[in-house]
């Protein structure tokens, strides 16, 4: 029993419906720990980390928001061919309605004479930066835009 009391159990759970800030949830978890003879439990999820330690029969709760677990991930939209970059179709409104794009969306064009070739988003996400100016000569696979992945 003493050994069990000394045991620390750590669980990681990415998704839960439990609200760890609710007193009844904390009371329930503390009760389970006492019954199981577990000294402490730490639960980590995307929005917060919670640690419950049972000391002298009184549970203590430590909560903190989770550090952003991953750096933002970016992908480049590359030119499909050599030509002049256009950020939008010349026959359409130049204002982009949304910077949010889905994978495969056409997010720019490369113009060669009468040809207009679309540059597709390799991943869905938010268009964070346009790397070339409208009308610039770009080469095959040159980076045109930067997308922060969803």
């Amino acid at each position: 029993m003493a050994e069990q009391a000394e045991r620390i159990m750590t669980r990681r759970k990415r998704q839960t419906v439990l609200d760890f800030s609710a007193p009844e949830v904390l009371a329930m978890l503390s009760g389970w720990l006492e019954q199981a003879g577990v000294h402490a439990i730490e639960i980590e999820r995307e929005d917060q980390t919670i640690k419950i330690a049972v000391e002298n029969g009184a549970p203590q709760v430590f909560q903190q928001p989770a550090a952003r677990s991953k750096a933002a991930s970016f992908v480049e939209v590359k030119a499909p061919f050599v030509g002049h970059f256009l950020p939008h179709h010349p026959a359409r409104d130049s204002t982009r309605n949304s910077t949010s794009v889905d994978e495969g969306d056409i997010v720019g064009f490369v113009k060669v004479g009468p040809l207009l070739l679309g540059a597709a988003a390799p991943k869905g996400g938010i268009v964070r930066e346009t790397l070339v100016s409208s009308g610039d000569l770009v080469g095959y696979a040159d980076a045109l835009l930067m997308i922060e992945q969803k």
Partner: protein
Amino acid sequence: MASAFHQPQRPFDRVLIANRGEIALRIQRACKEFGLRTVMICSEADRDAPYGATGDEFICIGPSAPGRSYLNQSAMLLALRASGAGAVHPGYGFLSENADFAEAVEQAGIVFIGPPASAIRIMGDKIAAKRAMMEAGVPCVPGPDTALGEDMVEIADVAAQIGYPVIIKAAGGGGGRGMRIVRDETMLSDAVSVTREEARRAFGNPELYMEKFLEKPRHVEIQVLCDNFGNAVWLGHRDCSMQRRHQKVVEEAPSPNIPDDIAAAVGARCVAACQRIGYRGVGTFEFLYENGEFYFIEMNTRLQVEHPVTEMTSGVDIVCEQLRVALGLPLQISQSTLQSHGHAFECRINAEDPYTFAGSPGKITGLVLPSGDGVRVDTHIEAGYTVPPHYDSLIAKLIVHAATREEAIIRMRTALSAFKIEGITTNIALHQAIFADEAFCAGGADIHQLETWLSKRSAS
């Protein structure tokens, strides 16, 4: 040069250089001398090549595989359109002898710096080329100027008339591929059927022709230059007999031990042939030379890798003359003013094992180029440059010029010993061995000498 520079209305002022490596830089140098802007192109493998930044523009046209970039006609034509270039210089290799590409460029209203597509097409068909040369009085290897039929009895008659040994060649072949030597009638039938199938698969053209096989010829070339006004000159001859696997290794100008009057007579016939077919720009007539006789084998309708040795002995900048002709200007040189001075050699420095010829791509960690009077290095490499594995292994051309052949040999030996390339394997050791070889130094080696020497070396 001044008149070209100040030409009031030029047909173009921007040239796209449809090539890579040393020849792209060589062409760029000539363009700069004419005040022409340059568009350099590259594949993804060459995107970080330091020489790219030396042009006015540097654009990637496709992936590393040559078929999707340097050999991709559509990509090249779109790059021409997008860059606003008024002319394209194809260099050598890749699209330089592609008649369809030259035609597409012409139809797009862009100047192809080379001969008309029609001339490329004729010379690309070895039978048509031979017929054109025979009609112009250029000496050819004995054999008919028509394709072989299907009837083996007739084929055997042709061989008997020529006299064994004969060689069966693919009409669309070149570079040593699509040919077979036949020493007697028993070998003939198999040789014809195998070569025909090879030609069909490799060149898409099953036509074959037959010629007398010369046992120990030398490979000698005549360089010509023609403008749009009917003017044509030959700039001299050079010897390219030092070959391995049909690839030239060392070239020299002039070819040793060829009497001036014999060379002049052949040169004049080459000029006449050019005028007869309406040729334009630079070209090279390739001959086999044996027992004091020239035998035409093919014409290259482009700038040659080995053009610098002729530049050194003739004093003519061949690439500048190409540009002059493309700009619609007349030649400023005439046959009577041309003379050959001294002797020049070129060593092709390749990123490969000197004896197995296995490619050696990789990063160059250290580089010392030879220099001094009469020493020229045409190259695109520098310390830190990575030789990509996708292309020809040629990384530099070392050219020397001196008053005599003997002095040029000594100059080349010194230059080779000063040439240091670290990080990759090169064939400099092979060149040093060639320039120490007594038979080579004596001059007049035949086209089998290097292969024979290499075989003996590997056997010992």
